[in-house]
């Protein structure tokens, strides 16, 4: 089963970390990525740019309109995400709980729909 794990946050949160905590967190994220890449469960991990650099595209009457900023007017934004392929949901939740930033923010675990289907 594949899962997308999404990490949310905002500038206030990221800037609230003292340098040593931030450095430690980055080191732990690297170790986390390496460990689950080696176990064959982490397919890929991506960090995203700041919300200032996000753009939203809308097409209205055939005209594409690009606006600055994310689609949702939320206080917290997607900051990074990774994709797991694991035995079951419980395993995905265990791995998500080990993600260092789960201690500071929350991480969301979404199942990724697959192409397999039972004969009904």
């Amino acid at each position, binding site marked *: 089963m594949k899962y997308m794990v999404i990490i949310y946050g905002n500038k206030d949160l990221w800037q609230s970390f003292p340098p040593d905590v931030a450095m430690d967190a980055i080191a732990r994220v690297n170790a986390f990525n390496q460990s689950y890449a080696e176990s064959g469960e982490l397919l890929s991990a991506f960090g995203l740019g700041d919300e200032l650099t996000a753009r939203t595209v809308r097409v209205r009457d055939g005209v594409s309109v690009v606006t600055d900023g994310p689609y949702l007017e939320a206080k917290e934004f997607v900051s990074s995400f990774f994709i797991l392929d694991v035995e079951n949901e419980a395993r995905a939740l265990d791995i998500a709980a080990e993600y260092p930033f789960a201690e500071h923010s929350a991480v969301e675990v979404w199942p990724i729909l697959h192409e*397999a*289907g039972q*004969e009904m």
Partner: protein
Amino acid sequence: MNTEASVEDQLRQLGPLVLGSLLRRYGNLDLCEDAVQEALLEASLNWAKNGIPERPRGWLSTVAKRRLVDLFRAESARRGREERFMVGAPPAEFLRVPGEEYDNDRDDSLQILFMCCHPALTTSSKIALTLRAIGGLTTQEIASAFFVPESTMAQRISRAKRVIREVGATFEMPPSIEIEDRVRAVQHVLYLIFNEGYTTSSGPNINRSDLTREAIRLTRELHRLRPDDSETCGLLALMLLTEARRPARTTSDGDLVTLADQDRGLWNASLIEEGVALVTLALSTGSLGAYQLQAAIAAVHDEAENSSDTDWIQILALYETLEYVAPNPMATINRAVAVGMVQGPVAGLSLLETLEGDERVSDHHLLFAVRAHLLTMAESMDAASDAYHAAALRTASLPEKRFLQMRALQTKVT
């Protein structure tokens, strides 16, 4: 004769035999398996060009041993310790002139299957290792079949080999008390490989049917090696009877077609014939098991000329036996369909109600989908539509979601 196909077939058959003889001598799954993979690759290039050699197994065996010597040297240079690899392999024997052959008629496929399905491995590792070591698929082929990057699959396989090394699994038959369990584990892995291939719709994922073919081939092997195991026979029958319906189970757009709506003219008659013969044999000989019963149910479906001829009374009896032999709430959900056909939808719905407190299935999309089906039969269309909708929200399968959403719309009272 199609040389390419026959080279491929030969290699798939010979790979495990050569791996077995290397493993018996040197025991190191890690290096032996890599050596055989390299030899297979070399053979597929060389044989396609120069034709299949007179003694293909000897050819492969010689090349694999040369590769093993190379890998062994590289490994000892890297790690600076030879003793781990050399345990159980006297140097004089190891350094025998390549080309000499021993035990060339021996078949160790069963031990390799057992090793690949060692209880210390996770299910996904068992699947990956089985496909590579005994199925002879390349890491890239396995990765693409499971939609993961090749590097991820390579990690999974090397981790699985490491686990085998760490638990000290030896290349011997497990103690007889463990053999039955290990055969069950192998059956389960083959069943999962089959399902993985079968449940994927055609279209963009056409390569997945390779998994189905491979699962059937390996189950034939297991059946050959353990002819008296009635569950292996049942599993093979189940696969053939299910595979027979593949051409009819999806539309060209990849949408699912219900069993009742499938064009039975597209079903594969020869697979059905073989499957029916196998399940009949299994049921008449060994002890009863879940694979045989599922195969028997598939056989009843496959033998009906059209869906209204289906012998639901027999299917219901088989589901009752299945639940008795292997109690499982998913079997109860399926039995509810048969109860609905035999005793009417109300009886089917009340059977489903007994599952509502069962955490294993109370949120499962199939429970909602079957309820929706029975509600449709009972002509409670609004409730049916809600249940289809609830089922659509709960499945992680894209084709199922499309199918259930469509049904939710179709049953909606306008």
